[in-house]
């Protein structure tokens, strides 16, 4: 999604979110990631000024203190950014890929099923299709990408072919590099 993205040129508008809307967003995020509930005050402090940054191609970013926390395509799900995922790795569902896949993911490739089912890979939780997952790697501590499952984990194991997880946001992509300033 962010292969061609330039934070300087792609910002359309930037606006302070009304507190009522902020509450709304908050509850939506909590619906999506119920494990975040204990830390939501840390992630989105009630008093903080939440900015909604609308970008081209229908991408919306949510920022607090000039830090991008979540992003969204159209009106869809809220994705955490990698920096947020690094801070709260346990709040989001995880999958793990084997070592060979790291390089390809870091250049933006989608994750094929064999990369998720081989020896170094792991899928501990049973996840349905279209879930947002943090992608971790064999032998590494931190996540390297955020993905969207294209099939359920069950199917990934059984079919073991084609794209298992779509790569949405990965380390060193333009979104990772961009920082928002006021």
């Amino acid at each position: 999604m962010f292969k061609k993205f330039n934070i300087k040129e792609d910002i359309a508008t930037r606006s302070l979110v009304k507190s009522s809307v902020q509450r709304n967003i908050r509850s939506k995020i909590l619906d999506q990631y119920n494990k975040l509930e204990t830390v939501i005050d840390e992630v989105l402090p009630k008093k903080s000024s939440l900015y909604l940054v609308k970008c081209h191609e229908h991408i919306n970013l949510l920022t607090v203190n000039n830090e991008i926390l979540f992003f969204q395509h159209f009106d869809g799900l809220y994705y955490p950014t990698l920096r947020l995922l690094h801070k709260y790795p346990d709040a989001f569902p995880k999958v793990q890929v084997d070592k060979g896949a790291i390089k390809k993911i870091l250049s933006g490739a989608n994750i094929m099923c064999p990369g998720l089912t081989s020896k170094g890979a792991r899928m501990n939780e049973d996840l349905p299709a279209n879930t947002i997952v943090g992608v971790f790697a064999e032998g590494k501590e931190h996540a390297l990408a955020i993905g969207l499952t294209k099939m359920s984990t069950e199917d990934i194991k059984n079919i073991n072919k084609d794209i298992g997880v779509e790569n949405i946001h990965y380390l060193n992509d333009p979104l990772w590099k961009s920082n928002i300033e006021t």
Partner: protein
Amino acid sequence: MSEQDISTPIPAVSVSIAKQVIYCGVCSLPPEYCEYGATLNKCKEWLREKHSDLFDNLYSQTNLESDMINLSLEKKPANDAEDKKKAKEAAKIEREMQKKMASKITITRIARNKRKSVTNVCGLQNFDIDLKKAAKSFASKFACGSSVVKNNQGNDEIVIQGDVSDDLYDYILETWPDVPEDNIELVEEKKSKK
């Protein structure tokens, strides 16, 4: 027994504390991913300086391993292509740096009327300076109008109302320390058409 069973808490996944993550100062990735970037050597140096414990953790073993690999690599030229690609990327980054060092900022005073003039700055964007913000800061610093204008080559430049060229020279050096002094050029006066 049964009592104990009940009292043993379910291993709750604790989400409560934000993890502190160290990011590499060179390539901005978590250090364990530095090896996939183009600037591994620089990243290593940086990590050794800033977080030596982490460095030892990451590279002490892998160093040996990579040495081994290097040894075997010499025998196997098949993997050379990858090395070459990496070297190319590193060279590209180097070149960009050089280009940055070579690029100039020119400050020009342009006479507008008999006693009035404007100051024109171009080349700031080569140093990753946000022109819009720079213009704003100039405006407040020199208490005058300042705006980003496209010149006839299609490049953005900043036009400041009033002659502030000398002050501007100092101000630029002060605010953006990574701009080398030699790269700023003061053009005293551009003769306007008669």
